[in-house]
């Protein structure tokens, strides 16, 4: 490896090193704030190092990883999201008793896994990244060992993630057995020159890959674990699962499809189309009946992945842009939603029932305004980034003449409005007679975070042009 390779890998190296530094620090002296600060510094330095890595991009570092603008863009997204998660975690655990420093170590490892995913061009790095991410997540979900729900959620996630990894491995094995390569870039040629697109091995292998990825993305019919894990995990960890973990997989899948000309596999595309439709309908339908905010958001995130897959099926340059934009929006809104749930949590108890938010508009207008903005963005209402994101997804769908999928997306948007508005209505309605539920105050860092997220939500909703340009420049690497 040359020094250029090191420059290219610098962001990932910094993340790895900082996890070791935190580990050593914890070994010497436990201090929650110091551990938090170290992880924050690690993430920030890694984020800055993206620019220096950008000077040598694109750079293939070993056959496993490629550091191109595409990977750097998603790494940047992941790092920023992780900074948000770290701040949320700090606020969440501040008054928690017992060991809490270790979560920052596993958080950094999970970020590393995600970073490897978005830059991998090889089945080995794909699997490696995925496992690093997943195993860290087991720990993060079950981190609050003293409570019952996190443990249950952790075990659930462990079993299902292990099963999905098995599917993935089998899929990789089938593809390797038939085509004799683990490189994404070689797969397309081998398929074309060898067995052809309709070979049983290629189709089965791809289907198993999709199954494995589907579990991580929590799309229907692989979504069963989502509500329980979302509900059981501590809110900051839920935010991490919903954003960083899913975002990494989407970025990887997209690269895989573009590199292996997956868009020529019609059967697979049809299957993804069905998954998209099922995710939209099941997610929205089940979200309608939830009384628990975290479960509601879990089902809503299933539906949102369904919307995303509509653009995925469409394919083409517009779709890549739409997916990237939508992911950014999805990150901001999801972090905002779980961020509020997490910031309002008191030691040992989260405010998860819709009833807890009744009258919030009048007791804590600013938090309620932020939550409303997040909900409206999830619903795709103008002036919020969600509107522009949904617009781009619909644009991608129409550009590929996927009118059927687009119409179903429209129908689902209308259904989804109902439950998003339900939360908004609950916040608006005055608590009649009985005492308003008293919610705890939030710290300064929490306030700043919410201001930042809401500001980003509105900025990208009103003036999306710079972000669109950035995405267009960054995505050129894979088109």
């Amino acid at each position, binding site marked *: 490896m040359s020094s250029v390779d090191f420059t290219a890998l610098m962001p990932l190296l910094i993340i790895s090193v900082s996890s070791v530094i935190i580990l050593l620090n914890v070994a010497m002296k436990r201090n929650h704030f110091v551990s938090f600060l170290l992880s924050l510094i690690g993430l920030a330095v890694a984020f800055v190092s993206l620019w220096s890595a950008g000077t040598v991009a694109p750079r293939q570092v070993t056959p496993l990883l490629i550091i191109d603008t595409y990977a750097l863009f998603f790494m940047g997204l992941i790092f920023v999201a992780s900074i948000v998660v770290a701040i949320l975690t700090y606020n969440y655990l501040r008054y928690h008793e017992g060991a809490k420093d270790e979560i920052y170590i596993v958080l950094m490892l999970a970020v590393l896994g995600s970073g490897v995913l978005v830059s991998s061009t090889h089945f080995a790095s794909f699997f490696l990244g995925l496992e690093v991410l997943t195993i860290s997540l087991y720990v993060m979900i079950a981190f609050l060992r003293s409570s019952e729900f996190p443990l249950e959620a952790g075990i659930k996630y462990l079993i299902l993630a292990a099963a999905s990894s098995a599917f993935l491995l089998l899929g990789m094995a089938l593809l390797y057995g038939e085509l004799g390569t683990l490189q994404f870039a070689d797969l397309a040629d081998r398929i074309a020159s060898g067995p052809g697109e309709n070979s049983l091995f290629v189709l089965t292998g791809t289907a198993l890959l999709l199954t494995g990825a589907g579990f991580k993305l929590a799309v229907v019919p692989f979504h069963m674990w989502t509500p329980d894990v979302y509900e059981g995990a501590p809110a900051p960890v839920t935010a991490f699962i919903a954003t960083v973990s899913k975002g990494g997989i989407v970025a990887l899948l997209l690269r895989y499809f573009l590199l292996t000309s997956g868009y020529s596999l019609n059967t697979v595309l049809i299957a993804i189309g069905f998954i998209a439709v099922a995710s939209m309908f099941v997610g929205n339908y089940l979200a309608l009946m939830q009384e628990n905010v975290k479960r509601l958001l879990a089902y809503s995130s299933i539906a949102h992945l369904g919307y995303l897959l509509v653009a995925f099926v469409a394919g083409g340059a517009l779709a890549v842009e739409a997916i990237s934009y939508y992911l950014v929006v999805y990150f901001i809104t999801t972090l905002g939603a779980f961020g509020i749930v997490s910031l309002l949590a008191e030691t040992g108890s989260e405010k998860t029932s819709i009833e807890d938010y009744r009258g919030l508009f009048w007791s804590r207008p600013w938090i309620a305004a932020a939550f409303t903005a997040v909900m409206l963005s999830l619903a795709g209402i103008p002036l919020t980034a969600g509107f522009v994101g949904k*617009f781009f997804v619909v644009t991608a769908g129409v550009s590929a003449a996927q009118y059927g999928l687009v119409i179903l997306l429209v129908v689902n948007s209308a259904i989804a409005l109902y439950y998003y508005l339900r939360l908004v209505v609950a916040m608006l309605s005055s608590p009649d007679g009985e005492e308003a539920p008293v919610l705890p105050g939030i710290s300064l860092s929490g306030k700043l975070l919410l201001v930042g997220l809401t500001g980003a939500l509105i900025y990208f909703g009103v003036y999306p042009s710079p972000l669109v340009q950035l995405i267009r420049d960054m995505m050129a690497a894979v088109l």
Partner: protein
Amino acid sequence: MILLWLILIPIIGGVLAWIFGKVNPLLSRWISLIAMILDLILAVVIWIQHPAQIALENQGGWLLQFQAPWIPQYGIGFYFGLDGISLLMVLLTAFLGVVSVLASWSDIRERVGFFHFNLLWILAGVTGVFLALDLFLFYFFWEMMLIPMYFLIAIWGSANRIYSAIKFFIFTQASGLLMLVAILGLYFTHFQNTGVYTFDYTELIGTSIPSHLAMWLMLGFFIAFVVKLPAVPVHTWLPDAHTDAPTAGSVILAGLLLKTGAYGLFRFVLPLFPNAAAQIAPFAMILGAVGIIYGAVLAFAQNDLKRLIAYTSVSHLGFVLIGIFAFNELAFQGAIMTMICHGLSTGGLFILVGIIYDKIHTRDMDRMGGLWESVPRMGAVAMFLAMASLGLPGLGNFVGEFLALIGAFQVNIPVTAVAVVGLVFATVYSLWIIQRTFHGEQRESWELPDLSIRNLAVMASMIIILIWLGLFPKPVLDTARPALQKIERGIIPISQVEDQTPNPGMSRNLSDNPLHIAEPVNHNSAEQEGT
């Protein structure tokens, strides 16, 4: 730039009203009032300074334009333009804005700042809809005005407000998304033809679209607009939303939000898809006629005064739908006139109901009666507005509905005949309102004060405008004419008019009509009818 200010003034005013509402509720009322008066003055100045006909010939069809890039990567821009139709609608918006701020002066007592913020942002959204010439921008404003309206109903509404607000929101949002798909279909069709990505209305207007696709795209727009209009059978959100909204909300819903639907038909459906629009014209006219009768019959069956007035909107907007799809200038003028006058007369009635409800806390007409004795001024105003609403000659509504009917008569006699019956029904329910609330025996002895000076001033201004439009509608007709003629020319291609042969799209629908005339109607006739 002046166009941008029309939108920016209410936006800024709304934010200020919210901020200062915390200090003193009265301050936020005054800020809103001043903002809307400024807006009105601006609109009137534009009206006086830009005689429609001259300007249109010079500037490619727009009195004023404003253009700035927004998302250039997708061909999206801040593109506003003003022609006669939008000018009239903007005037109506600003006027009803002032009226609704005044109407909620003593009506709204809680969360005053946030109320005015929502109110002004709706007005900004509506103004944006009337001015946007970029289809993305149009959709943006179309959706943007829904949120504050939703809050208005959900927070300050009456008993069933949450249900009504959500129903309103889902109906309009779902239909709006269909329009978005249609907009994108048009966008990509234009791209395939020219290789240029743009949402610019003036660029898209000439796009040649395969006829089957044009029909689908047109339906996307059509559905969004008739839901807003509303036409039967997609009107069911309207009675709920109108009934449960606070007074200012009802005034804006009836006076402006419904008009955005009609405006969309004028601005987008007819010019962008002339042939497809011609194909569904008979169907649309039948929908209009059904709406007129159905709305009137249901209005007659209501006991709730506010709900009654809500149903009359369904009936009146039926005339607008018929007028728009009659495809001649006379009917277009009628539709525009009806839109304006309905906004004023129905808005006035809603304000009266609001005042009554505020004092006696019921809208049940069975419990009213004989109110004239205690509140003669209010009775007289209500009488006048009811007369306007039933189409008494000499008042603006008469001019509107009469022109629409004359225009429609030339293309479709059966529909016109049915629609005329609606006028009789309108007489019945309008007199019924007066009879049951202000005349007869006093069923319960209500003590309520008569109209205050402020409300009297509001009512007087509405009454004066209605009389003015009834006796001398020429300024309005003149303002709208060039824009309407342009739309009419777009539907009947010029080459075919010169050849004196009917447009194939038109003749197919009208072949069974003995009185169908292929030539455009004599433009002078509108003026004569009006004056």
